[in-house]
């Protein structure tokens, strides 16, 4: 029992990590898109738990609200909207290149793991600056907000332009009389 209490952080990490990887495997292997979406939801929430463990409470909240709330609803909406009559569940994978792709993923993973093993990293340095504005100790949300609207104000504005462009692009693609309708010839805007 004392062992459990002393190593609570580590046990929680391994539990959550295993669940996150299980969800990720589900995303890649489950044949039904709805099942894959639910596995992805599980991974999102587990990653949010890991954010809390690393003192990023604001980002954990953003992760749950934006990913698990917004993006997941968007995915499920499109899955339900689209009639996939000629995509049977047994055709979920590209048959020809699947072994090669898995091999490539494993090789890349081995290469990156080698990099991790060769690099030396000590334990965490503590989390003083993650909850501080100047010399004052505040919450993580306030610290992130302070930094975001002072030092990183210009990138923040640029990212808002990216969102605007994405919105316009989505509207253009979604228009019924857009260039993508028709039989493929006579493309016009």
């Amino acid at each position, binding site marked *: 029992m004392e062992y459990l209490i002393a190593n609570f952080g580590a046990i929680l990490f391994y539990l959550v990590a295993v669940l996150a990887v299980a969800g990720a495997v589900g995303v890649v292997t489950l044949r039904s898109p709805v099942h894959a979406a639910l596995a*992805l939801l599980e991974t999102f929430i587990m990653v949010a738990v890991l954010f809390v463990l690393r003192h990023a409470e604001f980002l954990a909240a953003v992760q749950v609200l934006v*990913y698990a709330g917004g993006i997941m609803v968007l995915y499920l909406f499109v899955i339900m909207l689209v009639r996939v009559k000629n995509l049977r569940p047994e055709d979920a994978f590209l048959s020809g290149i699947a072994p090669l792709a898995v091999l490539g*993923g494993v090789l890349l993973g081995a290469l990156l793991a080698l990099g991790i093993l060769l690099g030396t990293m000590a334990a965490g340095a503590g989390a003083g600056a993650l909850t501080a504005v100047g010399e004052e100790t505040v919450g993580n949300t306030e*610290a992130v907000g302070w930094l975001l609207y002072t030092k990183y104000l210009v990138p923040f504005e640029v990212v808002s332009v990216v969102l605007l462009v*994405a919105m316009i692009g989505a509207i253009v693609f979604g228009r019924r009389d857009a260039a993508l309708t028709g039989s493929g010839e006579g493309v016009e805007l």
Partner: protein
Amino acid sequence: MIITATHYVALSLILFCLGLVGVMVRRNFITVLMSLELMFNAVNLNLIAFSYRLDDLAGQVLAIFVITVAAAEVAIGLGLIIALVRLKDTVALDEADVMRS
């Protein structure tokens, strides 16, 4: 037993490679986009781990930007899916070969 940044980077590596394999092997456009989300999440996990390790908030701010770009990517990608379904009545990526002909 102390969890270091190495543990987080290793987990992030596993998630990233799984997402990469998913992008390559999936036929359904929607699940390919989901695997892409998996890769974004792995990157965010890395940023957060190093933000804690180096005691620097810049990693968390960068993760916010990554989430924003991911949201933009989903909006565009799902718009593309709707357009593709309207054009070819399919979400299978190997049937989206209009530009090849």
